[in-house]
């Protein structure tokens, strides 16, 4: 038993043998100039092509053999000195053949000579040939026959400038001929799908696709006709081709032919007929892969736009973007079951198109992204990895084009698209963004943009709910975080104020990253901040006063907090050291010093990373600086503030009552000294308010349960203040009076409140 393939091989071999056998006799007839015999044997030879047993592939082999022989026959026909029959008679003679297939092959062969002889107008002969070929309705045989017709007529069309040019409508005749042949071939091709034994669909489609180029070649010929100008293409060629494409209602054909149209005709024609071309898309069968078709079209147009700047006005003139955009919308609407990947691919193409054609129209880009968001929001979850890839492509396109993330950051729909990515892809995209920034050295210089940027890359910045942490590859993670760290360096603004804002935003975002990420990111942030500081140092003279000092100190504050957050003691320590150095060397203005020292104290107080030793060193230093401020009042205030360094009102904060008391006592001493200095200097009392302030600190610590602060000490202090107030009656200080009064009222209030606190305050007498 032979199987199918072997059978086919056998049939093919038989067919070839048949052709060779008859060709042999035909050659003999040709050599002896015997026309009758030549016709007889050539017809017999061509009869081998009547087989129905071969697949297109094998049939093609057979056809090629016959084709070669027909070329010889044509040479013989051409030379009428050999056979003595005029071409007109020959044209009739070959039609005597009883079988249609050999008859038509011979007719085409003679027809080609007929045209060449110019004894009849090319258009008449061609029209006759294409009409007669209708007789072959068998798909494969018909396709090959018409393909033969196309082949022999290709150089004999009555085109403008061709030697076969006819009257005024000559191009139209050429076009009509090719179009008709094309139409018929396409019909036959489509029919293959429905005729013949009910074989496997895949097999049939495969066979059909082997034949597609036979059909497509007609379109190629059309595109080669010189006389087909834009006008004619627009008015005749395209509408008629599309009519055929739409009406054939066959997905394979529609897909192939649309693609073919796009590929063979010139770009500017497409541009000028965009509406017609796109109008056909929604009319195609739902199973047609329209997205690929449209993508190819847009790719072509994009390349065209990129080829020369001169053509860009044309694009604007025909409103290419809006037309494409509409068409895509319609296609997506019409094809409800189009997978997400399809829709997104379309958007990617459209985006590429608009980026190439209208690089200045960011609104277009945003519009495309918006449409994509709309589409994506209808899909519950994007799980298709190919779709995901397309989304990444979609998002990467503007980055590549503009080489500048800044532009992308102004696209409002950009982050919304990113939201639809899964976690992994989101990260990937974030990496792409970062890499783009790195590659282009683009600098993000405003806080708003930084905000948006970090929104975009949040996948890298923090854990996202539902992320499977276990799956993280350690190396990838490092890579990602290093990238983020590098990114931080790219955020820069010459204006310290803005830079500060930027740093603040970065801090805000990075702080939520958790212990795994911070070690990577914080150091960058610190260095960034340090750079800002260094810059400020370089600008001395320009920026003076409070503001200048505020800025770096704020920086320090936030940076130390950052360090705190990530539990890196030595970084924080180093940082504080730096802060002190800076304080010492750079902040000369006394007011600025006061502000700075308060900031330092405040920050230090919140730190909990330091070990005992480091903390001691730092607090000691802070206290030392406090006591060395210029004005006594400032000294006093700074020193009592230092008391907080030893008392952190937290669960496991430091609670060193003794040293708190030491500080407060020291503050009191300074206050006293200030009082005396004031007396000496102006003969009047100094600011009593200092004492009241210290009293408040006492009460605070008393309340918090510092055992070193006793009610008697408070009692003593109140009395001291009263004494001072009285001695200072000459110079009454209403503010201090009010302050004292309200402080006393507070004590009174606590006493009356009763409970544990009431009892505590009971011993204080007012």
């Amino acid at each position: 038993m032979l199987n199918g393939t072997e059978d086919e091989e056998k049939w093919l071999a038989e067919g070839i043998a048949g052709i060779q056998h008859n060709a042999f006799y035909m050659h003999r007839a040709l050599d002896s100039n015997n026309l009758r015999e030549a016709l007889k044997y050539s017809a017999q030879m061509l009869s081998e092509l009547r087989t129905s047993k071969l697949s297109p592939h094998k049939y093609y082999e057979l056809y090629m053999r016959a084709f070669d022989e027909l070329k010889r026959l044509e040479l013989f026909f051409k030379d009428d000195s050999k056979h003595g029959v005029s071409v007109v008679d020959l044209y009739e003679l070959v039609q005597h053949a009883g079988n249609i297939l050999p008859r038509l092959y011979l007719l085409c062969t003679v027809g080609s000579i007929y045209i060449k002889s110019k004894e009849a107008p090319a258009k008449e002969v061609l029209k006759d040939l294409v009409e007669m070929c209708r007789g072959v309705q068998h798909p494969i045989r018909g396709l090959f026959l018409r393909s033969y017709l196309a082949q022999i007529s290709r150089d004999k069309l009555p085109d403008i400038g061709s030697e076969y040019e006819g009257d005024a409508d000559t191009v139209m005749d050429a076009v009509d001929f090719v179009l008709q042949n094309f139409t018929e071939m396409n019909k036959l091709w489509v029919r293959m799908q429905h005729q013949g034994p009910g074989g496997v669909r895949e097999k049939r489609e495969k066979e059909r696709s082997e034949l597609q180029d036979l059909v497509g070649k007609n379109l190629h010929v059309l595109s080669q006709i010189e006389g087909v100008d834009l006008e004619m293409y627009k008015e005749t060629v395209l509408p008629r081709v599309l009519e055929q494409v739409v009406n054939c209602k066959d997905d394979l054909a529609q897909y192939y032919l649309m693609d073919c149209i796009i590929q063979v005709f010139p770009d500017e024609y497409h541009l000028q007929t965009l509406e017609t071309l796109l109008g056909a898309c929604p009319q195609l069968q739902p199973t047609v892969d329209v997205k690929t078709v449209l993508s190819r079209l847009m790719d072509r147009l994009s390349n065209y736009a990129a080829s020369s700047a001169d053509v860009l006005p044309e694009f604007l003139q025909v409103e290419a973007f809006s037309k494409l955009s509409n068409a895509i919308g319609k296609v997506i609407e019409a094809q409800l079951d189009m997978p997400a990947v399809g829709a997104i691919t379309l958007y990617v193409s459209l985006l590429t198109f608009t980026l190439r054609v209208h690089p200045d129209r960011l609104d277009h880009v945003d519009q495309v992204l918006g449409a994509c968001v709309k589409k994506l929001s209808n899909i519950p979850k994007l799980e298709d990895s190919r779709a995901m890839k397309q989304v990444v492509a979609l998002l990467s396109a503007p980055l590549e084009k503009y080489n500048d993330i800044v532009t992308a950051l102004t696209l409002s729909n950009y982050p919304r698209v990113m939201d639809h990515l899964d976690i992994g892809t989101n990260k990937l995209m974030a990496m792409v963004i970062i890499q783009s920034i790195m590659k282009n050295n683009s600098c993000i210089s405003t806080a708003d943009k930084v905000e948006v940027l970090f929104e975009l890359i949040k996948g890298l910045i923090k854990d996202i709910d539902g992320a499977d942490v276990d799956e993280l590859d350690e190396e990838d993670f490092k890579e990602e975080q290093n990238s983020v760290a590098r990114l931080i360096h790219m955020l820069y603004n010459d204006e310290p104020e803005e830079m500060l804002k930027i740093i603040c935003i970065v801090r805000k975002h990075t702080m939520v990253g958790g212990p795994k990420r911070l070690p990577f990111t914080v150091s960058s942030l610190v260095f960034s901040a340090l750079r800002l500081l260094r810059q400020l140092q370089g600008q001395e003279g320009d920026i003076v006063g409070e503001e200048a000092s505020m800025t770096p100190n704020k920086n320090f504050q936030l940076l130390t907090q950052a360090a705190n957050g990530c539990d890196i003691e030595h970084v924080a320590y180093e940082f504080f050291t730096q802060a002190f150095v800076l304080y010492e060397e750079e902040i000369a203005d006394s007011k600025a010093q006061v502000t700075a020292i308060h900031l330092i104290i405040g920050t230090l107080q919140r730190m909990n990373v330091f070990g005992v030793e480091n903390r001691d060193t730092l607090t000691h230093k802070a206290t030392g600086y406090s006591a060395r401020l210029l004005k006594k009042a400032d000294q006093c205030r700074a020193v009592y503030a230092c008391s907080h360094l030893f008392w952190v009102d937290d669960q496991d904060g430091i609670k060193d009552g003794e040293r708190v008391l030491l500080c407060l006592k020291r503050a009191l001493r300074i206050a006293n000294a200030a009082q005396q200095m004031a007396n000496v200097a102006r003969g009047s009392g100094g600011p009593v308010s200092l004492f009241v302030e210290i009293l408040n600190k006492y009460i605070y610590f008393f309340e918090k349960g510092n055992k070193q602060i006793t009610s008697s000490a408070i009692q003593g202090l109140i009395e001291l203040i009263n004494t001072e107030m009285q001695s200072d009656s000459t110079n009454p200080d209403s503010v201090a009076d009010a302050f004292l009064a309200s402080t006393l009222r507070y004590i009174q209030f606590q006493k009356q409140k009763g409970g544990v606190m009431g009892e505590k305050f009971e011993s204080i007498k007012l």
Partner: protein
Amino acid sequence: MNYLVGAFKPPCNIFISFTDGRSRKQVPLKKENGKTVMVALFQSQENIVGEVVVIEPIHGKKVEHNGVKIELLGQIELYFDRGNFYDFTSLVRELDVPGELYERKTYPFEFSTVEMPYESYNGVNVRLRYILKVTISRNYVSNIVEYQDFVVRNYTPPPSINNSIKMEVGIEDCLHIEFEYSKSKYHLKDVIIGKIYFLLVRIKLKNMELEIRRRESTGSGPNTYVETETLAKFELMDGAPVRGESIPIRLFLSPYELTPTYRNINNKFSVKYYLNLVLVDEEDRRYFKQQEITMYRNLEAS
């Protein structure tokens, strides 16, 4: 022996020739023995002029005769009725009075404006032929007879009315076609132009062909014999068409040996032509529709 041989041979030879024999058109004619010979072609109303040459008898014998005559005969011969000739035309010219033949003699003859209404025809069951018959009548012994065939063809002008044949046929819910032949009357070298339009196709067709059939009927009444021959099989279509498809027809008649249509020739026979459109489906079932066409002989085209 020689004497004996001489006894069975005709005592003299007769040759018949036409005056314009050299210039006159010669056409092939199939004889009874299957051989084809070239003979002169005439048409009705022509003058048939020539001469009869009688070669002198061998051995210098004399031939006594009762007269020499030439006849022009138009005969219809029906094969099933062998031996019976029906002469529809019979003209006689006396060439010589009774006497003796002893030397070569030449007799000119002329039949002027001979009425030959029927064409020579060589069919399956019937033959119509024209002959010149020279008879040397003798007493007691058999006459000496010689025949000369010639062919008659009559030309008719193109018909003034020549309608197309157009018809819609079909099998209900299976196949509906409409066909059209541009003319109903064709001359012998004509071309049949037409088209077949498929209105409905529910059967799997394999191909379609056009046949030219000749129907020869002989005799009359219960003794009518009908013989149909297919002269041409011309494939019009290969493969299965779909609805709306139209298939062109172009069939050149010149390669086929056709005659004009003969209707009731001398009440003896008729020859009619038909176009038979045959559709063959994949199971080799044949669907056909036959249409008569009229053939005529056109002078210009021949």
